[in-house]
């Protein structure tokens, strides 16, 4: 894909003490049109590993299929050797880089998130083949709007509530400022003990004092 058609918005993932939060909104855009309002953009690869992406959705679906096949290959061998989270990230990097070199990229930035052996894991791979394994991941405009919020409100060793709160703030900012932002967000909270999914709606504050007074002032002029 060189020009995407149906696209997903920003993805945010942060580590907390003993787990990871992976979140993205539930919208797919068709250019500037809000085409699909209620899509869960988080896909499962393993019981303890999930992937989400921003960018062309059909490419995301295809790559998820490819990644699931890698998991299946490993299952078929039945030799006690399974793919680690890092293996998925490395494979994805190789895939993206080789596609990019053929001028036919999967037009997505992927975020892998998982917890294994008490160790949280986050890896991003973009459509050029850049791979980063870090404590937080923000894609698309989330990177620009969200990074200052994350830096101020979160650290990799914080509590789960704090992490979810920080991520929620990012999506609120995205809903208010990103044209392709949506007010419904899917949260995936990964802990060693298990996985929890939540869905929340951003409170788009239109009844803001400053907005009301200033807007009305401008109209009077």
């Amino acid at each position: 894909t060189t020009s995407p058609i149906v696209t997903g918005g920003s993805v945010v993932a942060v580590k907390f003490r003993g787990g990871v939060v992976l979140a993205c909104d539930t919208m797919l855009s068709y250019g500037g049109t809000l085409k699909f309002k209620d899509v869960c953009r988080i896909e499962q690869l393993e019981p303890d590993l999930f992937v989400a992406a921003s960018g062309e959705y059909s490419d995301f679906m295809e790559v998820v299929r490819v990644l699931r096949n890698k998991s299946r290959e490993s299952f078929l061998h039945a030799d006690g050797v399974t793919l680690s989270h890092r293996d998925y990230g490395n494979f994805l990097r190789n895939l993206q880089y080789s596609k990019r070199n053929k001028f036919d990229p999967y037009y997505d930035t992927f975020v892998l998130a998982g917890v294994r052996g008490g160790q949280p894991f986050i890896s991003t791979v973009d459509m050029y083949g850049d791979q980063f394994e870090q404590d937080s991941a923000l894609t698309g405009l989330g990177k620009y709007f969200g990074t200052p919020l994350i830096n101020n409100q979160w650290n990799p060793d914080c509590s789960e509530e704090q992490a979810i709160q920080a991520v929620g703030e990012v999506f609120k900012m995205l809903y208010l400022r990103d044209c392709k932002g949506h007010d419904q967000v899917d949260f995936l909270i990964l802990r060693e003990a298990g996985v929890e999914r939540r869905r929340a709606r951003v409170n788009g504050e239109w009844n803001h004092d400053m907005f009301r007074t200033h807007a009305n002032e401008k109209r009077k002029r």
Partner: protein
Amino acid sequence: GTMYDLSATTFSPEGKIFQIEYAQKAIDNSETVVGVRCKDGILLGSDKLLFSKLLVPGTNRRIYNIDYSVGAVLAGKVPDGRALVSHCRKEATKYNYSFDIPIAGRILSERLGLFVNAHTLYGSVRPFGASVILASHCPEEGYQLHMVEPSGQAMGYFSCTAGKGKQVVKAELEKKAFRELTCREALVPLIKMLILSHE
């Protein structure tokens, strides 16, 4: 015997293809394997001889995964069987890629049958010296058991067996109604059968 057994492309006057029968012989001289369809699943078992103390236990595997919902046990020559397993995996993958659902046992066994049969049609290839017993599950058709033989014949079974002790095991299978047992209940009788076939 003579003259009609040089190639799989030749029939004998009695209507036999000797090369296929010889391939079957290779299986009949090999370890016993058994597959049984129970109430809540399928059991596959294989008598695995470690013919030397120098062998690592657990080596020479005979039971393989084909897909998330299909498994197989090999009868006869393991290298030939592994080629069949490899083909099964390819078929299952291609089918899933086209139809986005897991392949049913019935379809997979027929495809494998076609593949095996193709190796009995030309002078330049030899038949496989292995049978594959396929255990599968799909939502539409439930648990199924199939066996594919060197001739390419693929049939569905409630229970099937191949190998050295197949007569002994077959007699035992006909005696016991495995269909009514759960897998857990059938496990010990199955193991007993395999031990019995060892004699």
